[in-house]
């Protein structure tokens, strides 16, 4: 297996959250009753003409800029011709040889390693309508009794992002997609809701002898609407290709369908049946001229993006790269962390508590950062109680759990449950004396030179005080009693 290496390229489609459709004034919405957001333009009535949505251009350009692409000053729309009931004009207005933006890159992280994937292009198009095939059991058109078309989605602005074949593994492909999705969400141009198909992707994959510079013949994987399926499909397809090649066979350039139930890939249509889309420039639209000044205005007003934020967190808060990636990669988490710090908690303890107890709470409750049952302000108060020594670290964890359970301020929890740290020497001296008298064997060992036993004795004192003892003080008192 190691004699071969996979090469993966991705094509992503992202629906933009504009108020209106790409070429008409109909609202872009989800979940409304079918065919209410339609007009002569998006139903392709005779005589209707498209008009470009300026906001969609802005959103697409923002994505292109975030991917370090060059936004082209002159754009051409093309017609991509094919017949299907979800495509009312029988052509999709798309872009072909003069797309919105070309030549960028995206840096992403896999297991702490930074990888760069080159971006070939970002182009604009319109989404198709939604087909529902009734009757039959596959949900596909073949075998169905009849089909229905919902044109609400038809004409929604869609962008396509095409990478170069730079992705080295299924895991990397998955990471790439997740991190790219975060980026798009942060730009505020799409919610990228996967269940609603707002982001969809195809993967092109080939294998070649490790270290080779030439690309093998690729196959295209379709029908992947979850990150898990993507990785599963690639994990199935790569060994299949290797097996074919090692048996002396050749790979056909074809489109494959991944069946998550069987975990296998099967041909969808071969090259021979491939569509001839008969692309030609859309005569109903004039070339789109993009003012470079406008592009610079967009660039200047881009929100802070994850990669830049990770760097800033390292620089400004003194975090390690690993911590900065956890806290800085998504806007909600980063925002929460910065609120905790702003409320007076130290940067490092705030980071530890946010990545530790808070993240565990979010995961357990299935919540997004900022939506947990502990506010940043309350977490900051807790961190400060621990920092000042009022509460021990272990008690702090208990306080955190009780803050959620009782929806209470940390001070109130500490007060109510008596979780304050014991730093009173006389109180602790009694506990120390009791522990020493109850553990004569260990005392003997320590005095015989086995210093490691001290940890056990500290633990016994902590246990005796319900974890509330100031561990440093316990340490000092034990040493004084044993050595003295």
């Amino acid at each position, binding site marked *: 297996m190691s004699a071969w290496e996979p090469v993966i390229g991705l094509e992503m489609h992202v629906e933009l959250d504009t108020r209106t459709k790409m070429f008409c004034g109909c609202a872009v919405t989800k979940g409304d009753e079918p065919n209410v957001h339609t007009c002569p333009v998006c139903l392709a009535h005779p005589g209707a003409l498209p008009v470009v949505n300026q906001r969609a251009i802005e959103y697409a350009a923002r994505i292109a800029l975030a991917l370090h692409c060059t936004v082209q000053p002159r754009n051409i729309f093309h017609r991509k011709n094919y017949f299907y009931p979800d495509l009312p004009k029988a052509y999709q207005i798309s872009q072909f040889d003069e797309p919105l933006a070309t030549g960028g890159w995206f840096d992403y992280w896999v297991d702490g390693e930074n990888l760069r994937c080159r971006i070939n292009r970002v182009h604009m198009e319109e989404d198709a309508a939604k087909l529902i095939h009734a009757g039959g059991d596959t949900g596909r058109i073949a075998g169905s009794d009849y089909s229905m078309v919902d044109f609400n989605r038809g004409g929604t602005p869609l962008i396509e992002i095409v990478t170069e074949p730079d992705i080295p593994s299924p895991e990397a492909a998955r990471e790439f997609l997740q991190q790219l999705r975060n980026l798009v969400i942060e730009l505020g141009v799409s919610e990228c809701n996967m269940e609603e198909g707002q982001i969809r992707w195809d993967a092109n994959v080939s294998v070649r002898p490790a270290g080779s510079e030439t690309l093998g013949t690729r196959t295209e994987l379709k029908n992947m609407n979850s990150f898990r399926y993507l990785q599963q499909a690639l994990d199935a397809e790569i060994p299949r290709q290797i097996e074919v090649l090692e048996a002396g066979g050749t790979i056909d350039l074809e489109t494959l369908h991944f069946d998550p139930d069987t975990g296998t890939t099967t041909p969808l249509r071969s090259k021979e049946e491939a569509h001839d889309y008969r692309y030609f420039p859309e005569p109903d*639209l004039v070339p789109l001229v993009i003012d470079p000044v406008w592009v610079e205005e967009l660039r200047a007003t881009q929100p802070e993006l994850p990669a830049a934020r990770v760097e800033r967190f390292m620089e400004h808060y003194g975090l390690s790269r690993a911590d900065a990636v956890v806290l800085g990669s998504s806007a909600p988490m980063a925002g929460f962390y910065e609120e905790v710090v702003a409320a007076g908690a130290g940067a490092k303890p705030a980071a530890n508590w946010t990545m530790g107890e808070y993240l565990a709470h979010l995961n357990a409750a299935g919540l997004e950062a900022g939506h947990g049952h502990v506010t940043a302000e309350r977490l900051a108060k807790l961190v400060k109680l621990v920092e000042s020594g009022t509460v021990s670290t272990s008690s702090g964890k208990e306080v955190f759990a009780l803050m959620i359970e009782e929806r209470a301020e940390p001070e109130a929890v500490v007060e109510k449950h008596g979780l304050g740290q014991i730093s009173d020497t006389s109180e602790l001296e009694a506990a120390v004396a009791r522990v020493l008298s109850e553990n004569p064997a260990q005392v003997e060992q320590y005095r015989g030179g086995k210093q490691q036993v001290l940890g056990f004795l500290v633990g016994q004192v902590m246990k005796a005080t319900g974890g509330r003892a100031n561990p440093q003080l316990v340490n000092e008192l034990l040493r004084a009693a044993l050595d003295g």
Partner: protein
Amino acid sequence: MSGLDPLRLTAKVAKRLLVDGEVSAAELAKTYLDQIAAVEPRVKAYIRVTYDNAAKYSTKVDREMQAMRGPLAGLPIAIKDNMVTEGVTTTCASRILRDYMPVYTATAVRQVWDDHVVMLGKTNLDEFAMGSSTENSSYQTTANPWDLATVPGGSSGGSAAAVAAGEALWALGSDTGGSIRQPAALCGIVGMKPTYGAVSRYGLIAFASSLDQIGPLTRSVYDCALLLQHIVGRDCMDSTSVALPEPVKLPDAQRLDGLRVGIPAEYLAAGIEPGVRARFDETTARVEELGGTCVEISLPHTEYALPAYYIIAPAEASANLARFDGVRYGYRCKDPVDLLDMYERTRGEGFGPEVKRRIMIGTYALSAGYYDAYYGRAQVVRTLVRRDFERAFAGVDLIASPTTPTVAFRAGSRTADPLSMYVCDICTIPANLAGLPAISIPCGLSDGLPVGFQLIGPAFSENRILQTAHALEGAIGFDTAPGFRDSREEVPQ
């Protein structure tokens, strides 16, 4: 009765009579509806006459004349049936849109409706505006009022025949390769294709998007300007529409002093009939009499314009007509067995032979492996044709030619040979390829049939064209009333 002569009445005069109270809008509408009743069985210009609308709306205009004193209020109009009209079926003369009821109204039609014109009906055309004789209509063949045995030209043959036959005061048509100017020439009326983008195409059922333009068909140049004034303008629903740099003026020129007119040698080499040539030469002589000068010029790529057009127009049409798939509206075949069967039979049964021919030519020209040789090459030719004009307009103000090589031909005489039909537009197609404004005015008769004189100008030179055409029209003094003879029956007039 009003005693109006619908064969000679112009919008200019009708408007004055309305304003002066000498005739009511209802009387005016009735004049045309009566003429329709009298001659329509022989002319067949209309696919649908909107009798009720014309009667009711003209009465409303009379009743509310004070409020409705728009410049066009009460003037009856015919609309080519490829412009969508909400509430009135729009067929494009195709079986595939037989009972299609539009849900909106084309911008150009909306503009004249807002000016309170009275719509008389929707006129016949070649199916999807593809043709030069109106014989490609799925419904009926329109006759030329000058000789009912001949064609009215096309594709706006219904609009041209309706105006010529006095069945409408004026009309709207569309011109993709000559579809306004050629029928106007053959029917002895005025027809103008404005600069590409001057009139919104929103609601014009697309044939070839980069070539289509809506324009007026009228009985005089003045009327042409008056109607054009009310349909031009930038429309936010049509990205290719533009605002004219200056408003359209009503023409008043009597003289052409200082005007330089170019006569392209290539147009006169294109098989022009002697009778047509004679009227053309007389008209260029009038240009000089009126103070202008005529010079021979060259538009060297003219011979490639026709073949380039017959790649570009079908290519665009093949995509534009793909939406007629039986899914959402229009004709759908009976009992399809599956999706492919529905597509194939709906389109196979819904489209006529000329439309199918052009869809197939266009599909072929855009196919992988052929695109560069056909569509790509045709676009290069288009650029060369445009440059020919740019170069020529550096030396002349306007270019003149016969509108068509021949006068109206016998119905059925060219239907068997598509190429003989295609050459009808040899003098008109270059202006569409270059997006330029052009007008056809009647300049006399040859064998009793009208001859058209074409003037082509630089982009946005509508006013120059209209002034020149107006001055020439006055000098020519053409009588627009046709005789309704039928040369097949040799009925003497």
